[in-house]
């Protein structure tokens, strides 16, 4: 069965973006609509605290919340790029 959709379209789009990058979306909670889980939740992961992020059902601003979700997913996938720090 497909998971429940988020009531805000922009956030639902961001969740699908996360899923397309391998993140798992779990629904459940009260103020928190659900959670997203990084696919690389291990020692080398750079997401740190954001390896598991809580998604609000009614955030103050849905557009911003969607941006925040995408940012976490993008920051995570930077570990996939070669490290070019000297």
């Amino acid at each position, binding site marked *: 069965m497909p998971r429940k959709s988020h009531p805000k379209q922009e956030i639902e789009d961001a969740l699908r973006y996360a899923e397309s990058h391998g993140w798992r979306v779990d629904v459940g*909670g*009260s*103020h*928190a609509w659900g*959670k997203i889980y*990084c696919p690389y*939740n291990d020692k080398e992961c750079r*997401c*740190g*605290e*954001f*390896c*598991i*992020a*809580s*998604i*609000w059902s*009614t*955030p*103050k*601003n849905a557009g*911003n*919340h969607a*941006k*925040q*979700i995408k*940012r*976490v997913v993008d920051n995570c996938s930077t570990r996939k790029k070669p490290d*070019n*720090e*000297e």
Partner: protein
Amino acid sequence: MQEYEFTLKFNFPDPSHTPESYLDNLALAGCDDALIGIGQQGRIALNFNREAESALSALYSAIEQIKSVIPDAQLIEATPDFVGLSDIAEVVGYSRQNIRKLMLNNQASFPPPIHEGSSALWHLATVLDWLKEGKGYAIDDSLRDLAKATMQLNLAKESFKLDPVINAKFNAVLS
């Protein structure tokens, strides 16, 4: 009103605290403009997009709200403040090579790092000031305000570790 994007990381002195248990109260306290990371035991991180009159009041109100829910939470770091070359490049939207070149070509005036080692670290505020005032780069004023405020916050947090006697001695010799 201006929107500020920043992240605050906290830890709990009692690591058995599950960050998840605070979510509902954080929403009620007004942190529903943040994405909250709960992926590490004994820690919580909040990525805000907060509207406020100033960067200072955005940071202040966020900490006030978090402390009202988790009184013993200890601030680990406020970002954006400590940055390496890649972070600087990302923030201002140039390539890392570009920023590196800029640094090498302006060794006398480029802000000295606060740490130099296998990698170097700066306070973002000092680099943004230099880029804008020294080089005429277009730097968003609200970002500069934010970087100044997060620097003050991170310094304030560290100052709790100061030993008053030693600090007075060092102040006398440093100033």
